[in-house]
């Protein structure tokens, strides 16, 4: 009887290690990938906020909602979410000489489209341009500004030809 017991203790049952979940990937980054895939299946919005090729503070964008209303403004900053889908874009415009700002969640299912209206040739040096508020660098009526710039471009093209 005593002999049997000792044998039992000496050879404990060892199991195979379980296969790693998600191929060993961190749960948080895996979840972020999943969520991004769900809210942005085409990858279009992710490309918009890519830190190298995407939008930059100073660009003028037009955001259209599903109910066909739209907001135009100059990008003041892009907040990129880490391990979440909270990425958002802060845009500023002057409407009837009143500065109005809106921070739009990028992966919101209410958005139809984000269109780049104008990219300046020279940017200010900062990624977040909160400091331009109420200074001489401040945005003007953005829609009028875009029209003026496009007019200038057309003129330049005509004179080149």
């Amino acid at each position, binding site marked *: 009887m005593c002999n049997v017991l000792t044998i039992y203790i000496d050879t404990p049952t060892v199991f195979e290690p379980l296969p790693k979940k998600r191929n060993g990937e961190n749960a948080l980054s895996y979840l972020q990938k999943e969520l991004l895939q769900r809210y942005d299946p085409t990858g279009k919005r992710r490309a918009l906020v890519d830190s190298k090729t995407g939008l930059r503070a100073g660009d003028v964008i037009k955001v259209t909602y599903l109910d066909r209303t739209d907001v135009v403004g100059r990008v003041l900053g892009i907040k990129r979410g880490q391990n979440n889908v909270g990425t*958002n874009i802060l845009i500023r415009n002057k*409407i*009837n000489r*009143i500065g*109005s*700002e*809106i*921070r739009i969640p990028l992966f*919101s299912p209410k958005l139809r489209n984000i269109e780049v209206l104008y990219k300046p040739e020279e940017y200010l040096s900062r990624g977040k341009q909160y400091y331009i*508020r109420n200074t001489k660098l401040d945005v003007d009526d953005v829609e009028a500004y875009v029209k003026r710039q496009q007019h200038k471009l057309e003129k330049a093209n005509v004179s080149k030809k």
Partner: protein
Amino acid sequence: MIYLKTLLNVIDNSGAQVVECIKVLRHGPRNFAKVGDEITVVVKKARPLQAEITGQAANNRVKRRDICRAIVVRTKSPFRRPDGSVVRFDDNACVLVNKSGDPLGTRISSVVAKELRDLEFNKIVSLAPKTF
């Protein structure tokens, strides 16, 4: 965040230019007014009376030191929409109304927040040149 002593711009043609909040209506004692809330105000600065103005606007003109009701239409403090976006304007502004909620002025000169439409201030929204 509009509370006691806050100065607001008036964006209608009732004659007032700057008003001071003296009471936030229908809120707790330590709460503040947001877009769409009703407040009681004192006129601190008014446009000088001109004789040539006639019609409805003339009857409803307010003078300095008048006490009236107002609806907050823009706030400098950021506020959140149900879809997660956050909106902020450069100033605090209001529109003067009478006790039954109709605007005193006949014109509104600049943008108002979109929330007013959902709160059924339809007159203010239709007078405003733009909503944001």
